[in-house]
Structure formats: structure tokens, C-alpha cells
């Protein structure tokens, strides 16, 4: 309000001055025009000074122009102060984010849609042997060239990290996890997992070595027990204990055998190479073996709906299928039935074993493939299982890209189904390079 009044007053003053001089000299129009021109010139000059000042972008030394011009200068100064304040706040926040990522014990690399490095923290540089900010803009796959990593980055399955050794630090194991976000951007998370990898290797070695070492003393024990059982001189009262000892020794041998199978499965990395395995023949043999047993359910049936073969390892597949069949036979009463089925569809090939046994409680199903897991303590020990059968099945299926599905109703029976993906499935007639 005030500056506006002042401007009007100033203009009126100038015009009045011009009018007075005009009246005195008798040339009112001329003097009024002169006064107006002078006023306009002054304002124009001030406008140019303002423009000059704004152009310098140095707001520390504002010109004193008076009137509405001062008002503009003050407003500009205020806007500028506010801008600077916000900028500093954002910068502070940005630094904080950057500093906190620097402090992370894990390496972080931000990648854009073209896999170029957008940002990275110090740990990432250290662990991957990068040159810090100098490497920004370079494609990550040009610097991390391991074929394994390139395959992982180019693929689309980022559910689990890739564990590998880099050439810059051959003794360390790194877990590289790609996490997609936004539109094609990705975060690469790098963790040093040398300790975990070593511990895991130690555990596997230990289990394998321990099982191996236990086997020879056990052989000696079973040998003597066998001799004792056949010895006429041993008094009758020891017959039952010796028979029980033999049974337990056999069970122990079975556990050790399964442990060795498991550690062998674990020692092999990745999926098995494909060799066409004649599943139909294998299942027919399994059925024959099952029928030859003394204690078995009345009905053991096999339904073959496809003559497809499976690309995989014959020994491993046999061990998985026979484990499933063993379980079914063990848990099914003499008047029950066990049904095997082999079929193929557009999803791949499938094998299932159904029984009419006691079934499995729903809460136990997810834990069934754990080692030594017992649904109830008495049951499987009485039947002499090792507690490792389903763990072996799970491992074998993993190595074939397949999965195990367990369905069960308590009191009515269970169905164990092995699903194999289409890439493992060799339809009948296709590919005659069978191993048989």
C-alpha cells in the first residue's frame, strides 16, 4: 500500500514541479513533457541497474534504488535466501544418505536399465576391485566379467543371490544379489560370505568323513553278530538280544549309507546333466522288488500313462523313487494299498506314490524333508527308517529342477508327487540316445 502511494506522490510531485516551471515560463506542455521524460529516464535507469544486479547472480550486495525497486530487490533477496535454505537441506539429506550407505558393511551398486553403474559405496569398490566414483557410467558387466555373473545379470531370476569368487580376491566368496526396482533399475547388493561358505564346506566334509569312519567299525560289529547268531554254542537266552542287536546294527548301517548318499548329493553343484533315463523300466523293477517283500500291503499297483523318459541321473532318480515307495510300503497296513503313477502333461513329467496309510498331520508336512524329522517318535523307529529318505528325495529333485508335493489326509492316506519340468521331459520317440 505504502510504496504505491509513494510512487503516485513522486509522480505527482514531478508533474507539479513541471507544471509550476511551465506556468512561470509560460510553456506548460513542454515542461510537463520534460518532467515526465526525466522521470521515465530515471526509472528506466533503475530498471537497468536492477537487471544488471540480477544478472550478476551475486545477491550479497543489493543496490539501493528507492521506491518500488527496493521492494523488488527485497523480494528477490528473500526468494534467494529461501532457495538456498532448501538446497542446503536437500544437500544435507543427500549427504546423510550417502554417508550412511558408505557406512554399510555390505557393498551397494546402483545400476540403470543399461546396467551402467549409477552409484556405489566404498565397500562395493573394495570388494569388487572397482575404482569408486571414477567407474560411474561404465557397464557393470564390462568390469565383472565372470561368465556365471553375466548369465545371472542377463537372466530374470533374481530370487536368490549368486555366490562366486571374483578374480580380484581369489580367496574370498562374495554373494551378489540383484534387486530390481523402478523401471529397469537395479541394486546390486554384495556381501562377503567367505565364512559361511567355509563353514558349510566344513560341515559337509565332517558329515561325509564321520559317516565314512563309522562304517568300518560297524562292519566288524555286524560281522561278529552274524557269527554269533549262527553259533550253536551260544545259549538260547541270548538269541533275542542278538537278533535285536543285528536289527539295530542294520539300521545304523542304513543311516550311515543314507548320510553318505546325502553328502555325495550335496557335494555336486548345480543341476545334473541330462541323460535319457527309462523310467518305465525302472518303475517296473521297483514294483517287482516291492511284490517280493514278505511284509507288504495287499495291493501294490503301477499305472503307466506315458512312455516318456526323463533327462537325469539314473542312480539318483532310482534312489529317490525307491525311497518314496519304501515309505509308502512301510506305513501302509497289510490290507491297504499302494499305487504308483507315471504321467506327463504340458507342465512336464510326474511320478506319484499314494498309500492308504495313517496319513500325516498337516502341521508336519512342511517339515517332512528335514533330516531326522519324525512325525511321532515311535513310529518310524519301529519300522527301521533312517530319517533321511525324504531329504534325499528333495535333494535329488532339486538337482533335476523338480519339486516334491505332499498331500495327506490323516487316517486316509498320503500322496507324494514328484514334478519334473518340461526341459527334463523326453517324450517317447524323441531322442533315441537312451542309455539302455
Amino acid at each position, binding site marked *: 500500500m505504502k510504496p504505491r502511494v509513494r510512487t503516485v506522490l513522486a509522480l505527482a510531485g514531478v508533474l507539479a514541479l513541471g507544471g509550476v516551471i511551465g506556468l512561470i515560463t509560460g510553456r506548460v506542455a513542454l515542461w510537463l513533457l520534460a518532467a515526465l521524460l526525466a522521470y521515465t529516464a530515471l526509472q528506466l535507469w533503475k530498471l537497468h541497474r536492477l537487471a544488471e544486479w540480477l544478472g550478476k547472480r551475486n545477491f550479497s550486495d543489493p543496490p539501493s534504488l528507492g521506491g518500488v525497486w527496493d521492494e523488488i530487490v527485497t523480494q528477490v533477496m528473500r526468494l534467494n535466501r529461501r532457495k538456498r535454505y532448501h538446497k542446503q537441506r536437500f544437500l544435507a539429506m543427500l549427504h546423510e544418505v550417502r554417508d550412511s550407505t558408505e557406512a554399510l558393511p555390505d557393498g551397494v551398486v546402483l545400476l540403470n536399465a*543399461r546396467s551402467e553403474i549409477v552409484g556405489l559405496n566404498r565397500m562395493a569398490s573394495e570388494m569388487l576391485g572397482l*575404482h569408486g566414483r571414477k567407474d560411474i557410467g561404465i557397464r557393470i558387466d*564390462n568390469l565383472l566379467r565372470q*561368465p556365471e555373473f*553375466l548369465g545371472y545379470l542377463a537372466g530374470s531370476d533374481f530370487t536368490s543371490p549368486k555366490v562366486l569368487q571374483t*578374480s580380484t580376491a581369489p580367496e574370498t566368496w562374495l554373494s551378489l544379489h540383484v534387486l530390481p526396482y523402478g523401471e529397469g533399475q537395479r541394486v546390486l547388493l554384495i556381501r562377503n560370505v567367505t565364512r559361511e561358505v567355509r563353514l558349510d564346506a566344513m560341515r559337509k566334509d565332517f558329515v561325509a568323513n564321520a559317516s565314512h569312519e563309522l562304517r568300518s567299525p560297524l562292519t566288524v560289529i555286524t560281522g561278529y553278530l552274524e557269527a554269533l547268531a549262527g553259533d550253536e554254542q551260544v545259549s538260547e537266552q541270548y538269541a533275542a538280544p542278538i537278533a535285536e542287536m543285528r536289527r539295530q546294527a542294520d539300521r545304523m548301517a542304513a543311516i550311515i549309507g543314507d548320510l553318505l548318499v546325502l553328502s555325495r548329493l550335496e557335494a555336486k553343484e548345480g543341476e545334473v546333466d541330462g541323460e535319457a533315463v527309462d523310467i518305465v523300466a525302472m518303475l517296473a523293477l521297483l514294483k517287482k522288488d516291492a511284490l517280493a517283500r514278505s511284509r507288504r500291503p495287499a495291493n501294490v499297483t503301477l499305472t503307466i500313462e506315458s512312455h516318456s523318459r526323463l533327462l537325469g541321473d539314473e542312480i539318483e532318480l532310482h534312489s529317490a523313487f525307491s525311497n518314496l515307495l519304501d515309505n509308502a510300503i512301510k506305513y501302509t497296513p497289510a490290507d491297504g494299498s499302494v499305487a504308483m503313477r507315471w504321467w506327463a502333461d504340458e507342465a512336464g513329467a510326474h511320478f506319484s506314490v499314494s498309500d492308504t496309510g495313517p496319513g500325516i498331520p498337516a502341521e508336519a508336512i512342511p517339515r517332512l524333508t528335514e533330516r531326522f524329522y519324525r512325525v511321532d517318535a515311535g513310529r518310524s523307529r519301529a519300522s527301521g527308517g533312517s530319517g533321511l529318505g525324504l531329504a534325499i528325495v528333495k535333494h535329488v529333485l532339486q538337482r533335476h529342477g523338480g519339486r516334491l508335493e505332499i498331500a495327506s489326509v490323516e487316517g486316509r492316506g498320503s500322496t507324494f508327487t514328484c514334478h519334473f519340468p518340461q526341459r527334463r521331459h523326453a517324450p517317447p520317440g524323441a531322442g533315441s540316445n537312451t542309455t539302455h
Partner: protein
Amino acid sequence: MEATDLSQHISSRFNEDLEAVRANLLAMGGLVEEQLRKGLAALTDADSTLAGEVVRDDAKVNAMEVAIDRECLRILATRSPAAGDLRLVIAVIKAITDLERIGDEARKIANISLHLATLEQPSDRYREVRHLGRLVEHMLRSALDAFARMDVDAALHIAQLDRQVDEEYESIQRQCVTFMMEDPRQIRRMLDLSWAARSLERVGDHATNIGEYVVYLVRGQDIRHRNIAEVETHPGGSAKGGGTAR
């Protein structure tokens, strides 16, 4: 670094082609690095499974060389690249040849280790050869990193490492001869070892070549058969076939 800036082409397809060729070269480099690493591990750990893998995977290296070569020819024929782009294509064509040879040397080392694995392992696990191998691996990695980063300084450094490789190779040769004279039963093994060292020395030479292509690519300057000190002090000095600046 004019050559790194591929963003100024009107045709973005052209950019992508050039980027892809560079990425493919480095992917092939990664495969060759792995082959070399596995070959050396097979030698020092007497691991015949690993050696078998190296021998088998050499076909992949060869296939990549052919594919990249074809792609480069396609770019030359259809895009007629100039200046920095032309140098990139030329450098890639040259580098894949060297990489393929390194792959061959890795296969040779694997073959030697297949043979050595049948003999008794020495207690030092071929310490000298292992050291030479690490040095050569480092050279190859630096050369490929320099290609990815367009880093002339790193590329020039590789040639200096090559001198160290030559010295170590000489010393392994002398050592082998000494062992052979001491114990003629060792001649067979020492011959094999000397061949492995020879292969590593060749890998060093090929890595040096790749470093030279990086200098050519970035500076447009041919530094083959020239003194390194001279190149470093007079970067713009007279060069055979040089001066292809924009």
C-alpha cells in the same frame, strides 16, 4: 576421451551396436579369464576334472570369437564407421584374436596338467609357475579393465609387467634345466612344466597386445614395437599410422 563418448551418434541403433560389440568382447574376456584361472588351478591342484572342463569349454571361446568377428564385419560393412568408432571396431577385431590365443594357451596348460596329474605331486605345488600364473592373470585382468574404462595409464602399465613376466619365465627355464641335470627321471615332468611356463609367457604377451589396442583406441596412436618410456613422455610423438584424430 573422445572415444568413450558414443552418445553423439544420430542413430541410436549404431550406438547400441558399438556398445554390444564392446560388451561382447569383454564377456569373451571374462570367459577367457575363467579358462586361464581354471587351467592354472587344474595344474597346481592336479585336478583332472577341472582340466577336462577347460579343454571342453575352449570351443565356447572359439565360437565367441567367430560371432564377434562377424558382428564387427557387419558394422564395418553397413555403418562405415569413422575415427573413434572405426578404431573401436578395429581394436575389438584385434583383441578377440589375442583372446582366442590366450584361450588356446589355457587349453594347453589344462592338457599339460592332465598329464602331470598322473605323476606324483611335488610338495611346493609348482610355486614358481603359480606365481607367474598369478602375475599373468593380473595382466589379463588389467588389460580388459583398461578396455572397459578406456584407461590409457593402466594399459601402459601392462607392458611394464610383461618385462617381469619375461624375467620369471627365464628363471623357471633355468630352474627346470638344473632339475633335469640333477635328476634325469624328472626330465619328463620338467619339460611339461617348462611348456606350461612358456604358455603363461605367451599369455602375458597377448595381454600386452590388448593393452596396446586400448592406447590405440583412446589416443589413436600405434605404440607397437616402441619404447614404453618414449610413449609415456611424448604421448603425441610421431607414430606409425597414428594421428587418426577427429
